């Protein structure tokens, strides 16, 4: 685009370029002003509120300096929220990257029925999260959980009794054995609730990562594929030496998105557990909501949510760096 603009004859250039600059600012201006007012404004206001003792009822507030930040930090619930935010993000993103990598790779092959497989795989991404998480609430229900039904019932009634929970009990899992008459309380037990939240986070972000990966795979030039084939590279070796290096930048972009979407999400935890049982699944976002809206301590709530800011800044910087690298390669 830039090249086209520079290649223009200089004669009528000046007038045109001035016209362009004017037109461009008229067209871009409203959006920029709007974004500055609705994103920049609240961001600044958030920092201001976090330095005051503003409450939901009174709205006004007095300057308290960094008190809200230190106060939040000394609260064990805050520490746990911070730890959970990191835990949920890291574990779910590890699952997402591995699964999405496998799926995207398999989806590039033109097999029969691929469109229906793609449709099914993308469903969790298309469904609005506040609604689909309610589906999980039912799946993890305390009495009628379908997961528990499958675990503790005889799956092949008749001569060959087969119980899935017996298989699961062989596995070295971080929670105790499953008792058939006292099945796991997925949302009522602290450890299991962490696993439940992570599973839903991973479930909803796998399809998004698949979409980004597919875009990355599609951008690998056909010549590279051909060259790899001539050189006899195939299967895992081809993946390791050809696909992976070319995929790495866009995989990083998918990962960075996933980190932001998970770490800053409130919906999944709020609907599944509400932060419980006993605050064991609180995240920074749900803790900020509880403090800022439920308890009405607007200032302290703002301070808690601002603890997310360093993470976002790091992600933004990395995103810029990798976006550039993808562009260059």
């Amino acid at each position, binding site marked *: *685009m*830039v090249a*086209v603009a520079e290649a223009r004859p200089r004669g009528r250039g000046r007038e045109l370029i001035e016209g362009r600059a004017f*037109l461009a600012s*008229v067209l*871009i201006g409203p*959006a*920029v002003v*709007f*974004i500055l007012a609705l*994103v920049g404004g*609240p961001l600044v206001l958030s920092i201001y*509120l976090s330095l005051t003792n*503003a409450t*939901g009822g009174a*709205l006004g507030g007095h300057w308290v300096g960094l008190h809200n930040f230190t106060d939040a930090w000394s609260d064990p619930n805050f520490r746990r929220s911070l730890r959970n935010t990191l835990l949920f993000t890291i574990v779910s993103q590890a699952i997402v990257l591995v*699964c999405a990598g*496998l799926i995207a790779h*398999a989806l590039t*092959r*033109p*097999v029969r029925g691929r469109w229906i*497989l*793609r449709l099914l*795989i*993308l*469903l*969790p991404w*298309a*469904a*609005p999260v*506040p*609604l*689909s998480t*309610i*589906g999980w609430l*039912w799946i993890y229900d305390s009495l*009628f959980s*379908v997961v528990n039904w499958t675990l503790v019932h005889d799956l092949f009634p008749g001569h060959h009794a087969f119980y899935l929970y017996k298989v699961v009990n062989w596995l070295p899992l971080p929670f105790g054995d499953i008792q058939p008459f006292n099945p796991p309380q997925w949302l009522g037990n602290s450890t299991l609730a962490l696993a439940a939240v992570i599973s839903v986070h991973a479930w909803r972000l*796998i399809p998004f990562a698949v979409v980004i990966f597919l*875009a990355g795979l*599609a951008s690998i030039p056909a010549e590279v594929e051909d060259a790899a084939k001539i050189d006899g590279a195939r299967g895992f070796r081809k993946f390791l030496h050809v696909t992976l290096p070319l995929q790495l*930048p866009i995989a990083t972009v998918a990962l960075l998105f996933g980190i932001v979407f998970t770490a800053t999400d409130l*919906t999944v935890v*709020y609907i599944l557990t509400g932060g419980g049982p006993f605050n064991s699944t609180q995240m920074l*976002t749900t803790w*900020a*909501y509880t403090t800022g*809206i439920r308890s009405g301590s*607007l200032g302290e709530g703002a301070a808690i*949510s601002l603890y*997310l*800011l360093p993470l*976002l800044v790091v*992600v933004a910087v990395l*995103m*810029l760096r990798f*976006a550039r690298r*993808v*562009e260059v390669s």
Partner: protein
Amino acid sequence: MITLREKLTSYAVLGPFAIVLAFPFYWMLWTSFKSDIDLYNVNDVPFGFGKGSPTTRNYGFLFHHTEYLTWVRNTVLVGVVVVVITLALALPAGYALARLAGRWGQSLGVGIFLTYLVPPTLLFLPMSWVIAHIGLQDRLLSLILVFPSFTVPFATWLLMGFFKTIPAELEDAALVDGASRLQTLLRVVFPISVPGILTAVIFSFSLVLNDFVYALAFITTSHSKTISTGVFTELIRGDVFFWQGLMAATLIPTIPLALLYNVFLNRFIAGFTGGAFR
């Protein structure tokens, strides 16, 4: 050509993943058609239908005895107005960033995109402070005001990506033929960008459906709620769950959206990655 082994590996990977990822939707669909006797009978195999099922009574109850349709109407209203505002701002901006702004346009485009990464969970407290100050609590107008804060950056980025994929020579030809820039825009550029614009509309609308934080913080009266908070806060009350109706309520917006996503997926990828990650 791909070998049989590659084909089988693909199925072996995709099959199980498709089952696991889509299972919740199968489960929601079946649950929504079950009778109470069938649903709460733990001895029967739950994956099929039992006594009194399938039934559409749950849908009837949802439509006639809850405020579900009001929330659907509210959601559509908010969604349509937000999409109109979004297009009014993002369409010209996306075009100008792709075509007119030159080198600093690229940086500005990335800058706008980065604001999309500033999450609602960081902004909802100051926003609710502002909403309370101007007295818009419990009004749909509060959502209409705030939602463009994430749809505009997103749609601008998406549309910028689309306009970059349209060859500039097309417009140059029209300009040389004596058309003004506005005429070129209206007669040449927009007609061929209709699929791209539709993609921006669908994905902006789905961002509205995905919001939970703002709706939760701003709106507390039942008849002003949207689907995203209404279903969860009004249909789940204490211990009395009404699972079949809940599942029906979650599926109704999901199914059309899922079909639209699939139709527009390739265009979404083109726009989303066309901006910079290419």
